[in-house]
Each structure stands twice: as structure tokens, then as C-alpha cells.
């Protein structure tokens, strides 16, 4: 049923965009939306497409931007990574969009990146990722590892007194890079080699017996143990279930996850997950006027009172707000002007406080740790004192610790080596 709705929805919106293109022609500012509406990532990315559409609608109600109406151009890269490059090119050359909001997986971002740089496009990327990248043409509004993984580890270390670490992840680039950074970070903090256990599993792994039993054994050796999980999607549920069945509770061995949020938890049997942790920059449960307002709008826009909000949605929201501010400041939608105007922009976080855009195209945001509740919401148990500035190049990897990104003059470089004072030109 839902598929049907979705399909008609897409068909309608596509039809609508085509119509409006011919009718309104040059008098609009075009906003490209490059999110998968079909395939495996559709579950997550459709939400973000709707968020952009909602923001566009809202902006238009306020009278648009620079006296012009905004117009969303939605394309479907269908969870097919090379297609992201193709659709990105289509948006930039045929539709001539002024900005793109899009991508979820790192591989899709890496796929569209060369196109953006070649055609000098502008893209906002709203998902937490492994870092080690800063392009002039991309603004990263999701969390870098130092805005999610490292604070989570700090919380476990300082507040819960964790001394032994299990780094468990699905076998692909994001977990591997994140775990590499975490391992280096932990060792720099005096954690011994034998107190770190690293484990990778295939996508959709469902037989967790041995791994959970290993974790249990690893955790029963006297030191407080925690699991830092970069396990992706489907595999999480059997993992948490097995933890519950083997009698491991969140008080004994807490699991902190980086890819489990409200959207993933909605409609699940949360019993085995209660008390485990997740680290994000946003939780739906945070009480603030901006958030209440946003949630109400979202439910009205989707017409579903049960819809939840999540972190990548906030990242999209912040990115969109900042872009409109930057366009107003620059007085034009020209990519170079907007790019410079973006740096230093401030906008309200949904969780209170202000988000700030740094010279390296990453945001300064607060970091929150939440405990999973029975209703699938996350209750904040810890947050960083102030804002944490996103670090494009990790300080804990030997290859990137001397690198910084700074897109203001005189450096204007995404990969600047502070030791040799050179810019490699390679942005990723």
C-alpha cells in the first residue's frame, strides 16, 4: 500500500516539477533534491526528500528568497551509487539547479563529488560520516567522527568508567574508518591493546551467538566494558536480541550505536534495546520551542501523527536555513559567492543553541548521548558542554593529523598540511 502511495507521490511530484519548470521558467531559484526514492536506501532517504520539500514550501510561504519563489527539482538515484553522479550531472547541467540537497551513504557522496567539483555545483550532505574529506563544493551538516564517535567514547570513559572496548561494526568503509580513528584515540588515551576487541560482520548478519558470547567473556574479566557499535541497519535487531537472551543488560555492558535513531526504532520491538545508548546531535525527545514547532510541522506536512523526526532531518534543516541566509547575505545564488557567505553562518539548532558553519565546511554542533526508551524515543543522558566543531581530518590518524581544511583566503584548501604548509589539492 505504502509503495503505491510513494509511487503516486513521486509521479505526482515529478509531474509537478516538470509542469512548473515549463510554467515558471527563469523566475525561480531551483533546489535540487538528490535522495534515493527507491531501492534499499529509500527507507531513510525519502524522509530527507520530504524534509527539503517541507522547507521549500515553508520558505515560499514566507515570500521565497531574493524576491523569487523556490522550486524543488526531485530526482531519484535509486540507491544506485554511479547513478548519483549521473543524476547530479542532470541536475546541474539540464535543470541548472542553484543548490543540491542530497546523498546518504558515503559511497554515493564520493560518486557525485567529482561532478560537483567539475561543474562547480553546491551540495549539502546531511548524514553522519567517517570524515577525511572537505570539498569546496560540499557542506557537511551531519556529524564528523569527532562529533559523534569520540564524544560517545568520552562519555563511556569518564561517566561510566569504561575501561575495555568492543568495537563492533559491519564490514564496510564507514565502520572501518571510524573504528580506526577510535582505536587510535583509545590507544592515545592509554588503553592497552588487549583491552580493545574489534569485530566485523557481513551486512545483514543474523547469527550473533558466538560474537555476543565473546563479548560477554571479554566483559566479564573485571573491567567495565562497553560496545561501540557501527553495526548497520538490519543486523542490529538480532544483535540486541541475542544480547538480551544471553542475559547481558545495558547496565552490565552498554552498547552505544551510531546508526540507530528514531526512524530505525519506530515500529520495532524495543524491549531488548532499552537502556542501550545512541550518540547523535539531535533527538526528537529534546524539549525546545524550535523542536516542538518542527515536529508539529513535520507531522502536519506528512499527514501522519506517528511520524518521527531524526538527526539527518535536523542536519537537512540546518543546512537549508544556512543556505537561505547565505543567499540573502550574498544577494545572489552564485555558487562561489554563496560558498564564501556560508562560512560563519549561524542558525538555531532544533535542540537549542546555535549551530555555526566553520571554515572547513563542517558545523559546530552540540553532541548528545541518549538512552533508548521503550517507546522508541531516546532520552538524553549526557551532552557536551558547548559546541563541538566538526573536524574534517581526524587528529588521531597518522595520515591526516597534520591536515586541516580551510576554505577562506589565503589558504583556500580542503587538504592543507600544517607542517609542510602545502595544499595537496586532493579534497578526499
Amino acid at each position, binding site marked *: *500500500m*505504502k*509503495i*503505491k502511495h510513494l509511487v503516486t507521490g513521486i509521479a505526482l511530484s515529478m509531474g509537478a516539477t516538470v509542469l512548473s519548470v515549463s510554467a515558471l521558467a527563469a523566475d525561480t531559484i531551483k533546489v535540487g533534491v538528490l535522495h534515493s526514492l527507491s531501492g534499499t536506501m*529509500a*527507507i531513510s532517504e525519502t524522509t530527507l526528500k520530504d524534509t527539503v520539500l517541507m522547507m521549500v514550501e515553508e520558505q515560499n510561504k514566507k515570500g521565497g528568497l531574493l524576491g523569487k519563489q523556490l522550486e524543488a527539482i526531485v530526482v531519484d538515484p535509486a540507491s544506485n551509487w554511479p547513478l548519483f553522479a549521473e543524476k547530479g550531472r542532470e541536475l546541474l547541467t539540464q535543470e541548472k539547479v542553484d543548490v543540491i540537497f542530497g546523498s546518504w551513504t558515503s559511497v554515493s557522496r564520493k560518486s557525485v563529488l567529482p561532478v560537483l567539483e567539475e561543474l562547480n555545483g553546491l551540495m549539502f550532505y546531511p548524514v553522519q560520516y567517517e570524515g577525511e574529506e572537505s570539498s569546496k563544493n560540499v557542506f557537511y551538516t551531519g556529524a564528523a567522527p569527532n562529533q559523534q564517535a569520540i564524544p560517545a567514547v568520552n562519555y563511556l570513559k569518564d*561517566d*561510566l568508567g569504561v575501561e575495555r572496548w568492543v568495537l563492533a561494526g559491519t*564490514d564496510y568503509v564507514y565502520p572501518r574508518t571510524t573504528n580506526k580513528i577510535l582505536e587510535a584515540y583509545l590507544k592515545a588515551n592509554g588503553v592497552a591493546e588487549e583491552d580493545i576487541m574489534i*569485530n*566485523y*560482520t*557481513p551486512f*545483514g*548478519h*543474523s*547469527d550473533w*551467538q*558466538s*560474537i555476543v*558470547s*565473546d563479548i560477554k567473556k571479554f566483559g*566479564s*574479566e*573485571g573491567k567495565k566494558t562497553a560496545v561501540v557499535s557501527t553495526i548497520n541497519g*538490519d543486523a542490529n*535487531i*538480532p544483535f540486541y*536480541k*541475542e544480547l*538480551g*537472551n*544471553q*542475559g547481558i*543488560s*545495558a*547496565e552490565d555492558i*552498554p552498547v552505544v550505536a551510531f546508526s540507530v535513531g528514531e526512524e530505525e526504532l519506530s*515500529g*520495532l*520491538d524495543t524491549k531488548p534495546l*532499552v*537502556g542501550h*545508548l545512541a550518540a547523535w546531535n539531535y533527538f526528537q525527545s529534546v524539549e525546545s520551542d524550535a523542536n516542538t514547532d518542527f515536529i508539529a510541522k513535520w507531522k502536519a506536512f506528512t499527514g501522519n501523527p506517528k511520524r518521527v523526526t531524526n538527526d539527518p532531518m535536523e542536519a537537512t534543516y540546518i543546512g537549508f536555513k544556512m543556505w537561505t541566509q547565505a543567499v540573502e547575505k550574498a544577494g545572489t545564488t552564485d555558487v562561489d559567492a554563496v560558498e564564501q557567505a556560508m562560512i560563519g553562518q549561524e542558525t538555531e539548532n532544533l535542540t537549542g543553541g546555535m549551530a555555526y558553519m566553520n571554515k572547513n565546511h563542517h558545523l559546530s554542533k552540540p553532541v548528545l548521548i541518549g*538512552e533508548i*526508551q*521503550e517507546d522508541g524515543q531516546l*532520552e538524553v*543522558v549526557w551532552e557536551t558542554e558547548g559546541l563541538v566543531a566538526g573536524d574534517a581530518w581526524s587528529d588521531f590518524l597518522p595520515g591526516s593529523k597534520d591536515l586541516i581544511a580551510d576554505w577562506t583566503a589565503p589558504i583556500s584548501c580542503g587538504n592543507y598540511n600544517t607542517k609542510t604548509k602545502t595544499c595537496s589539492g586532493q579534497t578526499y
Partner: protein
Amino acid sequence: MKYLMAICGCLLSLLVSTSALAASPSEAQQPLLMQLTEVKLSKALPVLQQLEASTGADMMPLFKTMLAGKLYYVKESRSLIVVSKEQGETRYTGLFSAAPRDDLSKKQVKKIKVNNKLRGYLRESIARMQLHHSDPEVRVEAVRSLFSDLDAPTVELIRTARLDEQSRSVQAVMDVALAMDRAEHSEDATARLQAVKALYGSLEPAVRNQLTKLAENDPSGSVRKAAQKGLDKIAKQAERYNFVNQLFFGLSLGSVLLLAAIGLAITFGVMGVINMAHGEMIMLGAYTTYVVQLMLPNMIEYSLWIAVPLAFMVSGLAGVLIERLVIRHLHGRPLETLLATFGISLILQQLVRSVFSPLNRQVATPDWMSGSIEINPLLSLTLNRLYIVAFALLVFMLLLLVLKKTSLGLNVRAVSQNRDMAKAMGIRTDRVDAMTFGLGSGIAGIAGVALSQLTNVGPNLGQAYIIDSFMVVVFGGVGNLWGTLVAAFTLGIANKFIEPVTGAVLASILVLVFIILFIQKRPKGLFPQKGRAAE
């Protein structure tokens, strides 16, 4: 099991205590309770500690409700209430008065938050209060959960409780706790030595950790030696139980493989149809479980028993339909059958996506299948896996019985051995074909019910098992049910013994490589069919 019982005990006593206990909090407690509704999460611990130390009303119901996350307060009066959800209805009851408060609504109450730190404290505190619980099992669990945090007041509590403890098993764990304390804190080396010796034979992780510390740091050489000896004993035991544990994991994985493959052993093994839609028959069974739970939300405990026959019928019927409509027309053309059934598998997946949404569906696990039986601190068997091993064997036996002892079985065997001759004998072969295919598919549906308890129920469920199923059937020898059984358990156990060494990713690769090599050597699998039937 003990753990489970303890939980059940807790819940039961919770019910009893919340309803029967009417003692109202003392004057000293009142302001603390009020504070509980006001303090920040990070400042709640001292309040709870003061409450535990206070006299007056029993704090057990408060702590237990809080641990269960059911403690709320009324915004206006700041009085504490219990909010519980029963069969979709929210109920409000006073915490100490136990009087129903039907006048309240969701907007008037607010939850008292708990985090892991508080949960840890609450659990310990409840354990301390439970040292005098009437059920010895609960007392044993209470002492055990205090093992990891034996500070002086706790030890004192255990010591006093030990004095009038009657039950042998409780005495034993209490002695271990006291010995642990002596081994750590006693000034006298001989006393420590005796304490260490008293710890021999206990497999508790806390004991092992204590011995490790002693073996490294104790000033007395004889104590260090004794502790090391204790550790060696534990290590020897641990090795043995580790082996048993891995064997169990292997059997459990094997039983999953068996369940998934056993239906295919009939459709592919006996009938010779390469059925790529086999995984989707499993998926249909899993979705049947979901629908049963959706229809009967109050009968989760029995839902699986209802789902098993239903899943058999749903998948079996689908199987018969597929056979009648498609496979019958492609008889003797394996390649076309393969492609056609692959198409059917895609159609079924898409059908499920359209009907149920592409998201995974939630299938609840009944309480009797959650948790584990703890045989000793080093070895516990998870209940869901245990049931599934038994269930897989049961299904296998039943199937064997059907094939050997019923007339349908006789016909099936006759047709699969020599179709033309069977036809000449008056057997309606196409009817037998349909029934056989239905039987195989139905069994796959039953497997789906079991798998719904282990993995995600979603459109891709079948895809995850189809390769494994073919692997098992081919490895075991096509057409031989016993071969399937042996193959499933061999592969399961092999996988679980390789996994700790190589990791999960490499383990499955190694198993595949092994099968390829094996098939090179013996193309017909472990138990090839012999004689004329082989052709």
C-alpha cells in the same frame, strides 16, 4: 532459568507488593520522595541512597517500579504513581496506596527518568533488600548480583544474613562472597590463603577476577601460588565449557540450516525441481507469524503454536499453486524451471513489499522463549535456540515418518524413483507431484515461523537462506533426508568452530570453499543415492 525465575519472582512480588502494601512513607521519606520528582538525572543517585537508608515505608516497590521504568509523578501534586500498560490500556495506580487513579490522563503525569547508572544502583539496592526474601532462589540471585560490588556495608549485610540462613545453596554463595571479602581485606596471610582455598570450585567471573588480582599483587607468596592454582582450575573448566558452548552454537546454527533446507530436500532432493522460490516460502511462513500476532495481540504466548499449522497451510497452498500453474508445465526442463521459479521469487518479494511495506515487521518473542538456562556461570544456553534445535529435530522426524509410513510417502518415493513405472501402476503422478511440492513448501513455511524468532521478518528474509539451503542439500546428497540432517549439523558446527579463529566473514567463506572442494571430490554429496534410482 534461575535468572528468569528471579525476574518472574520480581514481577510477581512487584504485583503483590504494589497491591498489598499500604504503608505510607514516613516523615523523613516524604521530602526525599518529593525531591525525586525534581532533581536532575545526574543528582538523583544521592536521593535514592538516602531513601534506601531511611526508615518507614518499604522502598522495594518504589525501586522496582523505577527500575521497570514505570514510575511517574502527577505534575500538580508531585505524588508518585505507577503507570502500566496492559493490553493496550494505560493504567494509573498510586505507588504506596495502590489505589487506582482513573482520573489521571497522559498529560497530567510525567515520567521519572532512569539511566544506566541509576538502574545499576537500583538493581544492587533491590538485591540488598532481597537478601531476606522468602524464596531461596531469589536470595541466591541477590547475593550473586552483589558479587561485583562487595563494599564493606554490603559485606556486613551478607554476614548478618548468613547467620540465620537455612538454605544450603544460599549459604554456599554467601560463603563465597564472604571468602572473597576475606581474601581481599584480611590482614592475616593464612586467613587470606584459607579464603582463596574456599574460593576453589566457584566459577563466578567475579571470583576469577579476584583471584587474578591476588595472583599478581598479593604480598604473600603462598597466597599468590594458591590463587594461581585456583585460576588454573577455572581455566581448565572454562576450556571445557567453552567447547560445549561452541558445540551448542554449532548445533543451533545447524538446526536453522536444517529447518531452512529440509523443505528443499523434498522439492529439490526428491522431486528434482530447482526451486529458487524456496526462500520465499520461508518468508511467507514468517509473515504468517506476523499476521497471527497482529490478529491476536493478547495471545503472543501461544501465537507460535497457532502460526505453525497456519504457516504450513499458507506456504503449502502457495507451493501447490506454483506447482499446478508453472512447474508442471516445465517438467524435465531444469533450466526453465530455475528461471521461472526465480521469477516467482521476485514476484512474491514484491507482493510482500506492496502488502506489508518494505520495512521489516516486528514479530514478538513469547516470554517462554526469551532468556537462557544458566547451567553454571560459564555456560548458559539461550532458550530460543534450544527450542529451535528441538523443533528442527521434531519436524525432521515427522517428515521422515510421513515419507516412510504414509501412503502419500509411498507414492512420493515411487514417483521419485521411477515416474513411468509408478504411472503404469496407477499412481496419479501429477497429483503426487503437487502434494509433494506442497509438502516441501509447507515445511519451509514452518521453518519461517522458527526463523521469525531469530532474524528480521522482511521481504529479503528468504534471500538470506536460499543459498545456505541449496548448499546443505547438495552437500548432504540430493534425495537423501538423512544426508540433509548430517550436512546441516556438520556445516553449522564447522562454521561455529572456525568463527572464533577467523571472524564471521572469513568463516562463511571457508565453509563455502570446503564445500566446493568436497563436491569436486564427491559430486553426489555425503550420502549419494545408489542403484537405479540414482539416475
